[in-house]
């Protein structure tokens, strides 16, 4: 049961993120929702590579007989965090610009394209 806890948490985070994106009426909260999803996905990736009692996957000076956690998911997570940073920053930038133009952060009012 314990070993599945991380997956449940990841799923919960992703669903919370999606909920925020769909039902929150504020751009900043939507961006937070996307961030939550990112954290959920990152947690999922790291949890994939976790092994009970594993040590860091560095061969230099590693003690013998211990199993290691998988290095690939950690590399993936790092990349994903960097990409997440870029997307969050860009979304916040666009939110600021939208606020300047529309004087509101409510997505139901930001409908200039519909005319």
């Amino acid at each position, binding site marked *: 049961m314990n070993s599945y806890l991380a997956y449940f948490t990841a799923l919960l985070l992703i669903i919370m993120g999606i909920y925020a994106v769909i039902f929150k009426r504020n751009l900043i909260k939507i961006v937070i929702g996307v961030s939550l999803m990112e954290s959920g996905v990152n947690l999922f990736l790291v949890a*994939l590579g976790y092994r009970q009692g594993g040590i860091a996957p560095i061969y230099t000076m590693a003690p013998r007989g211990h199993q290691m956690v998988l290095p690939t998911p950690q590399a993936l997570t790092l990349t994903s965090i960097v990409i997440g940073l870029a997307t969050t920053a860009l979304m916040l930038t666009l*939110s600021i610009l*939208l606020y300047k133009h529309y004087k509101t952060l409510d997505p139901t009012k930001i409908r200039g394209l519909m005319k």
Partner: protein
Amino acid sequence: MNIIDHAPALLVAIPLFTAFLYQFIYYITHKNIRYLATVALGINWILGISMAFHVFSSGPISYVFGASSPGLSLPSGYHFPIRIIFEADGMSAFMALIGTTVSFVGALYSESFAKRYSELSKYFSLLLLLTAGLLGMVLTGDLFNFFVFFEITSLASVTLAAYRTYRKESVEAGFKYMLISTVSSLLILVAVGILYGEYGALNIAKVASMIQYTLLDKVALALFVTSLAMKAGSVPMHFWTPDTYGEAPAPITAMLVSASQASLYGLFRVVFTLYGLKISTLTVGWIIIILGVLSMFIGVTMAIIQKDIKRLMAYHAISQTGYMLLGVGVGLATFGTDAFLKYGFTAMKGGIYHIINHAFYKGLLFLTAGAIFYRTKTRNLNEMGGLAHTMKYTTIFFMIGAAAIAGLPPFNGFASKLLIYESVFKFNPVLSIIAMMVSILTLASFVKVFYSAFLGPKRIKDGKEFKEVPPNMVIAMGILALLIVIFGIFPGFVINNIVEPTARALSSPLLYISTILGKM
């Protein structure tokens, strides 16, 4: 050492390097270098063509980063590809051919079109990043890298769509696109994670060779299919398409069409190669067919009522994507049965032929819309008219593009649609009839555009006539128009030498797998 062996890596590396070079030069000299992007993408174009024809004639090539020779995916003693691998089989090379062509044309067009934008060097850097992203998406042989390039493409296209930040609509379109593409790419990453957790590999060929089609695999497949179909702009997840296509600068819109098709490539790659050995072809095939038919019909009917020229064309992009989904979907639904050889393969050929045709004529149409906007400063069809008097080249190019998209013979759109109609009719006559009806409605709405924008009395704004656009833009449009005419007059040549190898590569997952893993 042959340059073609390195082509898969170079195709991504050249735009990526030039993108940073632009910023570097700007940082030092504070001057915008003109034509640097065009030259770099021109080299890329030549490389793309030569790689494509090499692959079509002599089979897939792979590029292994860091290996002692480019094609060495399994060093002695390894049973497992551990390095980052790019793989160009027929389908990838075909998409790279499209991507390099359209990006070169887009850059050439931008040299004049984007001249009045501030921060020109950033514009071109982003354009090059978009090119690198979409070429990376089609060339990579690795699931995680696919996600990375997917994100690069999204970020670059969002920034370019929202480039005119002084317009509130542009920023809004950018944010909408950003939101939905970020959510979808995160779910793609979940799917990649699921596959990694199950099979411990990220290489597409390796995962494809082990795929079991368990429940988790099915969930991952659904995540892939939905996300990539959404990015390709299929109904009912198409709402971002008219917004973003409408608001992005015209050359960028032409490239966004190719970026969407890179997502379409991802979809086809996932269903045919990654899951190709075990997929339940009928279920997934019908899902793709239904998405395709919905896209075709709703896209074209919504296009008829639009009055913004670029939104109208964006709805047509949705509708034309439907044809590709329909053609390849029929190919998938019949995959592995006798019917595949009888008509399924022809439907796939039609769908794939339509991809390249669509990239060219839709690109051309968006460029002509940009040319109209460049002179008239409006996108509203109600306020246009009489442009044929003064903008002769644009008019001719628009006519070529409109005739091609409506499937009028002898242009290329007709050739691919003919293949789709005939083969889909064997599969299910109703689908074929819908496809023909959509084609008629397409013609109807382009007649409307042609009538409102080009015909009628000459108009004068601020005491000036609307002159023809600068030569860069005319040449850029001319290249695409020429390709359309060639593809229309020599359909047999194109089918035999370009489309057939592509369809064969897409429909043979074992070939893709054995390129990396050797004979199994």
